[in-house]
């Protein structure tokens, strides 16, 4: 091996052969070779080309290269386009660091139907107490304060006071025969004081019993929708007299659900079955002349072909039954649309007292992060959902169907980002959302 001294000697020997005499003489009095002299040495070196000369293959390939140039530029610029570029040594923002240290947490998400992306800010410095607020681009808001206890085995208990404004959800009418372009919007303010709890108890090695309960007081009122694109519900003769549009409605809610969790995760792939049934009673209080009950059931199935491919399905049903007075306010009717049984249709597209839906997906992994912390799956899907005044009146003939495909990025923490395109009778929908449909 020739170390640094050897290299030095080699350079001088090389120079003695190659430096023009005048340069060599100039060096005799100046000690080691200077970079400028070395440049002149390099110019004299006879060696193979630094890169291959342009040849016939390059000439033939040139048109192809021009054709794929946009594709390559897209690839080369992919990092920037996707917003993935991180600057080396990112500079911390002092105020953000100070807020983090003080227990302030922020994030992005969504806070209700058609609320759009929201920004959330919370304070967790006094755990288990919390306070948080969220504001969306479509003017929806949600503010909560309370107490959250999280125990082992998935046990939680939360007491909270909430104000939630859903600024512009759409209402398309009741029944299957409504028109997509005859929609209205409304504003829904809701005050809630609630006590909720849940627990998970293993039944055996493969099964876990999941129970949850809720006791709540709530006060609902409907205002004029904030959307400028469509009329507000108060101005629509078909809908303005529906129960809940003009009344302030208060309920005491008592309910619970029981689920049997037979799922497990291998790698990043969920497997197994989850079945759940619940019932909730809405009892009108004060001036509210309305009592109703809501029964719901869900069955989720994840059937793997192998660690990278699986068939997943969801069966869901909901039935709201009037127990007295005015019955079910329009905003509490069961719905079909978007991730609720009809991805080619808008969220809340179809409403009635009862709904049923079947969603089927073929999922396959197309990429897995090296350290197995996240992966990308592609999926094709078929959704079929319908509504009716009663569950047993739901007919296969009336089902609204969707087909489509998409991809999802999932992480060890759960579904993170989903993007799909769905096709149905009312055209297609391209959607990006947080969290998978099921």
């Amino acid at each position: 091996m020739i170390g640094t001294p050897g290299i030095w000697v080699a350079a001088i020997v090389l120079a003695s052969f190659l430096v023009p005499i005048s340069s060599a003489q100039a060096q005799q009095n100046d000690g080691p070779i200077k970079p400028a002299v070395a440049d002149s040495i390099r110019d004299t070196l006879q060696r193979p080309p630094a890169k291959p000369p342009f040849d016939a293959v390059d000439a033939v390939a040139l048109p192809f290269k021009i054709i794929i140039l946009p594709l390559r530029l897209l690839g080369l610029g992919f990092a920037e386009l996707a917003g993935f570029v991180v600057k080396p040594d990112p500079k911390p923002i002092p105020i953000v660091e100070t807020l983090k240290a003080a227990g302030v947490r922020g994030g992005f998400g969504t806070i209700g139907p058609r609320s759009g992306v929201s920004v959330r800010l919370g304070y967790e410095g006094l755990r288990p107490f919390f306070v948080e607020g969220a504001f969306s681009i479509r003017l929806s808001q949600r503010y909560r304060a309370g107490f959250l206890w999280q125990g082992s085995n998935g046990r939680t208990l939360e007491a909270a006071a909430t104000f939630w404004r859903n600024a512009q959800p759409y209402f398309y009418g009741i029944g299957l025969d409504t028109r997509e372009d005859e929609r209205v919007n409304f504003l829904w303010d809701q005050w809630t004081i609630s006590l909720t709890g849940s627990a998970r108890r293993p039944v055996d090695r493969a099964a876990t019993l999941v129970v949850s309960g809720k006791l709540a007081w709530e006060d609902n009122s409907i205002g004029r929708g904030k959307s400028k694109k469509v009329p507000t519900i108060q101005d629509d003769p078909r809908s303005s007299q529906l129960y809940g549009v003009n009344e302030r409605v208060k309920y005491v809610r008592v309910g619970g659900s029981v689920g049997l969790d037979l799922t497990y995760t291998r790698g990043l792939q969920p497997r197994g079955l989850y079945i759940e049934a619940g019932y909730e009673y809405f009892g009108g209080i004060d001036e509210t002349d309305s009592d109703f009950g809501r029964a719901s059931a869900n069955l989720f199935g994840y059937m793997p072909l192998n660690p990278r491919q699986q068939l997943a399905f969801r069966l869901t049903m909901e039935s709201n039954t009037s127990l007295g007075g005015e019955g079910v306010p329009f905003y509490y009717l069961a719905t079909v649309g978007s991730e609720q049984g009809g991805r080619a249709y808008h969220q809340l597209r179809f409403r009635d007292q009862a709904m049923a839906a079947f969603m089927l997906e073929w999922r396959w992994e197309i990429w897995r992060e090296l350290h197995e912390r996240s992966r990308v799956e592609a999926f094709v899907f078929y959704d079929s959902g319908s509504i009716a005044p009663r569950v047993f009146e739901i007919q296969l003939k009336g089902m609204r169907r969707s087909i489509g495909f998409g991809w999802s990025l999932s992480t060890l923490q759960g579904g993170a980002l989903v993007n799909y395109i769905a096709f149905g009778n009312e055209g297609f929908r391209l959607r990006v959302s947080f969290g998978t449909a099921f």
Partner: protein
Amino acid sequence: MGNVRRGHRHPGRLVLAVGAVILTACGSTKTTSPLPLEPIAYADTLPSARPGNREINEVKRLLTVSVGGELGYGLSLRRWVGKDHEALNITRFDDVLNSAWYEHRIDLGNMTPEDVARGPTTVGPDTARELRVIGGKAAGISPGFTIQDARGDRYLFKFDPRGNQHLASAAGVIANRLFYAAGYHTPEDYIVVFDSARLVLDPSAEITVSGVERTMTEEDIKDILFLTDTLSGGRYLALASKFVPGEPIGPFYFSGVRGDDPNDYYHHEYRRELRGLYVVSSWLNHVDMRYANTLDAFIDPPGFVRHYLIDFAASLGSGTIRSHNPREGSEYNFALWPSLGRIMTLGFYKRGWEDVEFSQYHSSIGWFQSESFDPGTWNANWPNKAFNLKTPADGYWGAKIIAKFSDDHIRAAVRTGGLPSAEPEEILTTLLIGRRDKIIAYWYGEVTPLERPVVRVVGSDAPFLELTFDDLGLDAGVWTPGQTRYSWELQDTYQGIELSGDSDAINGARQTLRVGLDGLREDLAGVTYSEYTATMTVEAWRNGERVGRPAVLALRWEGGANGYSVVALRH
């Protein structure tokens, strides 16, 4: 002597021509052809001004090579038509010269197993005295800290993941020794056991946590040490990597050149030692061979950039913080084309690794195998252009280096890893020997492994040309003489000779081909040392099948007793 066909053109002449074109256009109207220019040893160590620092933008770089690079490579017309460019910095005998990138070591034939075990190391960190912590890194895949020992030498201390003692440290040091012996510049890496009581936090030490740099605290040291296992008596095992000589100026890329370094002449994707690095990396399963694990250091004086490979902790069975898995070495982390294949087939497109079971021979080794290793399809976790553009000649060059590692060399290197017992050492040695043999068998089959050719003209009345050479495929025991036959073709544009024929391999150290000649000219007018007058292509057939590219020899008519001399060789 074998059969001779005068003036007969071999059916596979088109294939042979690929090699011949490398040397010359072979035009029949020319009487002589110019020899290719040769690189110059250490020409890249001439003094230069200090190049600027190269900053890392890892996500951008990796996406660029994974998406843009793979699109360019996958849709390359040159690749489709099999006209990939050969490496450019090669000698007339298909080798590289010593440079700031590479120095011949094991292939010179005089390295002992002790030399391999010693590698680039000198004295190592002084753990008997104070170890001053002068910096830390809490983020990233492998947390650690920077130490200055009582001698004033600086080291990066890195640790094994908790529960996998020896996994990364052993792999890192063993691979360090083998890469160094193969000829690459590497830092001095050591296995050290130190007493945590000797750690002294320097007041000026800073640590980067979540991208934020701040003053380091004793708690930070504890947090880093918490991530690894403790030995008895408050001692810890670490991999200590000494700071390389010179001033670090960032990584090198596997394509293009560093524009501000006048010594960086050959575009990196056309450097033989970087293309051949694929083979060494595949042997050692260094799946993280990418720009981030390279380092350029400016050596001043005299003032030039030396190019290092650093951080070998993701080699062998180690994924640095976990074991490797069957996917690593078989598919890129982001594999554009397989991903597209999966998208288009609803996931039914499968790669071979998906059926390989994950099983470890030993927890200190991790997932490292020989049976499922395929030297021709192995890949690092991230693509790079030098590896993509490698040709059989580059792979063969790398395989020749690997072949120089004897079982004892490998055993000596494995012993430097500090594995917990003789059992994992023996397992790892056996696996490396198995992978070495697979590499030799594969790459020696991609070319005609003809070496040390000598020609001479024998006889005067009925002269014939005798070519003797080593067939490395026979020497390595990949094939037997009984399985081997050679076809050859001689074209002398200077004397107007065109002959071809074939001959069986013979038992013995040297193979011999004899070509009957007549009408030899004694006139040497016009032939200079930078020219050649004839090409001779030799192609090995194994078990009756053509197995690789032919070797192409350039011959110069010298006259006198020997007649011809070999002046160039390409594989």
